[in-house]
């Protein structure tokens, strides 16, 4: 990768992305070859927001590379509670680790943190901003199931606040992908992502109804619409109900449609889809391990050059 950090998918070139995905494929083929790759190295986990799968998968990925992790623990029991700035926290923790993974509720937190540290830093989610390591595993999953070029993808749900959506949409501009965005009017893509998509010349269309586009799709990427985005319960139920899928919805879909979801899901994908060939979200979650191993391997190997 060109840079020392992974902050935003908008910084990634096609070559950067393929380097990580190819390395992940090597790891999938022969995980034993990577088992001692980063023995003696330590990854610092700084999660200022609750996280289960991202934190666990980075932890697992580092350990499978032979390394170890140190975890800041929950914010409630850390010095953040005493009023320490993020800038100070990361400057202290970089002394304990060879690379840092940061999740923070404020947009731009990872960009700022990277200005204060010399070790590689991975943005594991900054508010409603970006979540680029999720995007790499999403792209790996898409490449395995549908291919990244000549791709027609539908991205549905909360496009305004969904950081996985922002990162995925920007990364896909590196490929020959036609992107369809399906959401209620109030949760359309934010201005900055639309600006980037437009500037890149990406093929983009927006819809409010899934059935306008479902038959054309190779991949449907579903995200959760959160209750707190709506002024009242009724409004939420009315809107969220339109963006749920079940086996009946899929009657209009292509037989080889790949359905993805960054998880956790609530009720946007009915469990009756789980046993169909469309369901790819658990495979997608499992891909977090080889992809994050590949990412860490590349970032941590920069020191050795």
């Amino acid at each position, binding site marked *: 990768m060109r840079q020392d950090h992974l902050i935003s998918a908008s910084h990634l070139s096609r070559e950067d992305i393929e380097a990580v995905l190819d390395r992940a494929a090597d790891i999938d083929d022969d995980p034993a070859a990577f088992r001692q790759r980063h023995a003696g190295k330590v990854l610092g986990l700084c999660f200022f927001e609750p996280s289960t799968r991202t934190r666990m998968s980075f932890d697992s990925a580092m350990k499978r590379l032979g390394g170890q992790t140190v975890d800041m623990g929950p914010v409630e029991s850390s010095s953040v509670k005493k009023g320490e700035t993020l800038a100070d926290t990361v400057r202290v923790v970089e002394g304990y680790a060879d690379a840092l993974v940061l999740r923070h509720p404020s947009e731009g937190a990872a960009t700022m943190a990277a200005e204060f540290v010399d070790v590689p830093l991975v943005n594991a989610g900054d*508010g409603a901003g970006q979540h680029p390591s999720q995007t790499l595993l999403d792209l790996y999953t898409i490449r395995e199931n549908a291919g990244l070029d000549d791709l027609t993808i539908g991205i549905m749900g909360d496009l305004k606040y969904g950081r996985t959506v922002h990162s995925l949409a920007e990364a896909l501009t590196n490929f020959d992908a036609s992107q369809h965005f399906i959401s209620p009017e109030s949760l359309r893509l934010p*201005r900055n992502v639309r600006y980037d998509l437009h500037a890149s010349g990406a093929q983009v269309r927006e819809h409010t109804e899934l059935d306008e586009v479902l038959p054309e799709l190779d991949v449907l990427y579903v995200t959760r619409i959160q209750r707190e985005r709506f002024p009242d319960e009724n409004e939420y139920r009315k809107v969220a109900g339109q963006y749920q899928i079940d086996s009946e919805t899929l009657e209009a879909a292509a037989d080889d449609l790949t359905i993805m979801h960054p998880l956790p899901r609530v009720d946007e994908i009915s469990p009756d889809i789980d046993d169909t060939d469309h369901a790819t979200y658990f495979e997608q979650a499992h891909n977090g391990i080889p992809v994050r191993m590949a990412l860490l391997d590349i970032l941590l190997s920069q020191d050795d050059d």
Partner: protein
Amino acid sequence: MTDDHQLRVSKIRNGTVIDHVAAGQALNVLAILGIDGTSGEAVSVGMNVPSDRLGRKDIVKVEGRELSQSEVDVLSLIAPAASINIVRDYDVVEKNRVVRPDAVASIISCPNRNCISNADEPIRSRFTVLSDGVRCDYCETIVREDEVAANLDVN
């Protein structure tokens, strides 16, 4: 622009005239430049003065201070048509247009309340200048040209 219009605000002997400012932006121009009168310079402001080019315009004259190009370039965000006249002994000795800078720092606050630049961190707000607005270097929020004045961080 005629002398008649110029005379609505008194002539200055030495200093800077910022002309062709979009109507209504004169006070923002002073705010961006950090000119609030406390350092004693004489400041004249004309607002909604008739202009051939702009219909109505604002004009700002600062006595005894020659503003540098880098000081005035930031004005291009709120007054892209502004011209800068350096006056010595009542004569205009230099006339420049504002040039859009590539980036601005500590001038605009990010309108995204959840941006890290609005938290209590040891950083300054920083924006990259686009053709029709600016973009926060931290959270990537885009502020359109017509929204910049409402988000100035200089008061």
